[in-house]
């Protein structure tokens, strides 16, 4: 297995172009020993008729750029430009995302301001600029990768990547002549001049191996498989529930039986004397009516209060007392009908007395203190007064409304109800 793999690698390696070389000359190369020699040689070559030459050194030698008469690199412009693009895109991104598209208040601050955006803007500036600098340097200026560079695997390359300095004159130069170039390099003082041939590409193949169909399709297949694999895995992971201890908790939910309590109920009855939140115990509970006949209703009469009183009355009182307080129960005799609230007696009660009856209960009527809040009971009292006034309205009352009173019939309904026995005592 490993042996096969090794063979495969060697084959792939050879296909990038090692052996054998073609007969076509790539360049003539000369080696020099010291940095000073290479500077002088580079200066002479750059002043000569040869234009297509290059100098190879194991490390950057200062002054060689001048000697080769190279123009200064334009890399800095790219770095600056893309740094600027990074800055602007960071600000636009943050501004749009947090200022326009998804505004959320954080600590009462404005949606978009510059100070909190500075760190990310700086980082993106550096990121853009740095990556572009390296990318441009490697791929645009230096035209790498160049995997079948003819200089690879030559004695010349071995020397110049270690401790020697070299000049090559390429065959692509207009003035190139193999013998002349060898003699020229020797005249510069090079002690070791060699001829470097191009790699032989496989027959019928003029493209670089990296652009071969097989390679490209293998690359594409790998990319697609990797992308799909990542996509599926990530999606699968996203919809996993890794632990569900959080939503299967040991807690009591409504209507659930309990094994813990002997009566099997999970909902417990509150202990004696427990006061519900918002309910204040009624001071006159269980006391006779005489104690409360001086109590007034502190709640102001407003439209809101009356509306509320109507709602509460219709909800809690009307099933027995009827919508207008006539004692016409909707329960159709299944429960004893209460007396009317329009009797002389009830109309003469102070507000406190009605309130007391609602709170305390009376005869068969139970206490409503646990169902209706204090304030709502008072609102109901006001509403009962409204009903009483409306039922026993006089002509003067109609005068208040400014309507024509002639022809209105006197309401006689109350006389029938008033004959019912008084059961309030």
């Amino acid at each position: 297995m490993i042996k096969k793999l090794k063979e495969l690698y060697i084959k792939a390696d050879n296909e990038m172009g090692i052996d054998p070389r073609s007969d076509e000359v790539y360049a003539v190369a000369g080696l020099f020993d010291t940095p000073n020699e290479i500077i002088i040689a580079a200066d002479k070559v750059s002043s000569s008729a040869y234009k297509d030459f290059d100098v190879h050194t194991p490390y950057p030698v200062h002054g060689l750029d001048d000697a080769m008469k190279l123009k200064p690199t334009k890399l800095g412009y790219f770095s600056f430009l893309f740094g600027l693009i990074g800055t602007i895109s960071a600000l636009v991104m943050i501004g749009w995302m947090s200022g326009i598209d998804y505004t959320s208040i954080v600590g009462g601050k404005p949606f978009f301001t510059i100070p909190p955006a500075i760190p990310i803007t700086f980082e993106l500036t550096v990121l853009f600029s740095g990556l572009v600098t390296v990318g441009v340097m490697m791929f645009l200026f230096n035209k790498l990768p160049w995997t079948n560079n003819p200089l690879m695997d030559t004695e010349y390359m071995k020397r110049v990547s270690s401790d020697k300095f070299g000049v090559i004159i390429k065959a692509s130069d207009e003035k190139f002549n193999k013998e002349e170039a060898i003699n020229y390099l020797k005249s510069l003082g090079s002690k070791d001049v060699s001829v470097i041939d191009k790699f032989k590409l496989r027959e019928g193949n003029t493209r670089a191996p990296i652009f071969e169909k097989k390679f490209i399709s293998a690359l594409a297949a790998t990319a697609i498989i990797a992308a799909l694999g990542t996509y599926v895995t990530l999606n699968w992971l996203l919809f996993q529930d890794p632990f569900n201890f959080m939503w299967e908790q040991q807690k009591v939910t409504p209507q659930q039986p309990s094994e813990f309590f002997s009566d099997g109920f999970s909902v417990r009855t509150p202990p004696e004397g427990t006061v519900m939140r918002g309910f204040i115990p009624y001071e006159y509970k269980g006391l006779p009516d005489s104690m409360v006949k001086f109590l007034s209703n502190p709640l102001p009469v407003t439209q809101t209060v009356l509306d509320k009183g109507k709602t509460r009355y219709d909800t809690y009182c009307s099933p027995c007392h009827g919508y207008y307080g006539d004692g016409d129960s909707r329960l159709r005799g299944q429960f004893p009908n209460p007396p009317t609230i329009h009797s002389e007696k009830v109309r003469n009660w102070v507000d406190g007395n009605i309130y007391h009856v609602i709170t305390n209960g009376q005869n068969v009527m139970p206490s409503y203190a646990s169902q209706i809040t204090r304030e709502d009971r008072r609102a109901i009292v006001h509403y009962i007064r409204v009903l009483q006034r409306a039922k026993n309205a006089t002509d003067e009352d109609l005068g208040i409304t400014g309507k024509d009173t002639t022809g209105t019939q006197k309401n006689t309904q109350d006389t029938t109800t008033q004959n019912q026995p008084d059961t309030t005592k």
Partner: protein
Amino acid sequence: MWLTVYYGIGMWGNNSTIGWGFGIINFVFWIGIGHAGTLISAILYLFRQKWRTAIARFAEAMTIFAVMTAGLFPIFHTGRPWLAGYLIPYPNQNAIWVNFNSPLLWDVFAVSTYFTISLVFWGIGLVPDIAAMRERTKSGIKKFFYKIGSLGWSNSNRNWQHYERAYLILAGLSTPLVLSVHSIVSFDFAVSVLPGWHTTIFPPYFVAGAIFSGFGMVATVLILLRKAFHVEHIITIDHLEKMCKILLATGTMVGYAYGMELFIAWYSGNQFEQFAFINRIFGPYMWAYWIMIACNVGFPQLFWFKKVRRSIPIMLVIVILVNVGMWFERFVIIVTSLHRDFLPSSWAMFYPTLVDFGLLLGSFGFFFTFLLLFLRVLPAVSIAELKAVTPHAQPTIHLNGHDGPGKSDALPVEDIHIKSE
């Protein structure tokens, strides 16, 4: 680690008072260690400190691995590491964007940018060296990878010209970057309102501490490395001595920061601030505080003496203590500030669990695995850069009229590349 992933971070010693435990301590610790590499390669490069070349490559590699190690901890600390992708602002199915006002998000950007730029910096430094190794490898698997890695680099001066400029620009970009990363990490603390965290000295204090701990770790590993690989002639005692001087300087800066924190606590007149620091020094975690003071401020003071600076065993002991001390610094900052906050009813102590210690130990394992792999397959010392600063490596003549001493008597450059095997 599996326990953490499966059961969540309830396996850690964190509780509702001390919400940040070992996870964040380890994160800050490793990020700090990651600062030495880029400092050496970028800032010392701009200052033309030539001695840096012997240790730069190694320190850069250390940076990358330390940042990788550090990056694991916040991801685990999220509790659902597979959802860490939500930290990146991309148009996701929830149609929400990240909170750009949060220092924790700044961290995401700072750490990932730092990692990317450090990786690129390290990568372009490697290209010429891989090319040199390519020329010395016979056909085979190794050669294949070296060939790919070197991108066909041929040492052409037309390439070197752009290469040098790119290196300079990257150094210029990395210099503010390296300072920004730990500043932003310190914002995680300083932007909160907790006494002991809410101080303006945090960014410079953290950066000094990061350089300190980074150099501590570089020195620790280098001392062992030069012995194991017999490269004492390349990473010389002079290099180590210079690192000791930097350790002394940054250690004293950190000491100044400790003192300044106490001074401000007193000078501010803020009783919460004062309590936080008195509690730090004399409270239940006073042992951690005094370990920190001794290891970070005390022992490095021995580096004033030249004999100590040039003695390998003493140096090794001190730099290991520096690593310990810097870990405890983060422990002190995080745990003692949190464990007694404004509300005495919520005061608590921090009890790390076995899982915590396992992750701490595992992070060292993770880091050293990568480091040793790097030492095995790639050149640990920058070959090309080191050659460029060897004596007589640069020409003595200048062509623009100011000729040097004429014909040079320069010696051939010593062949000092390190083979990978």
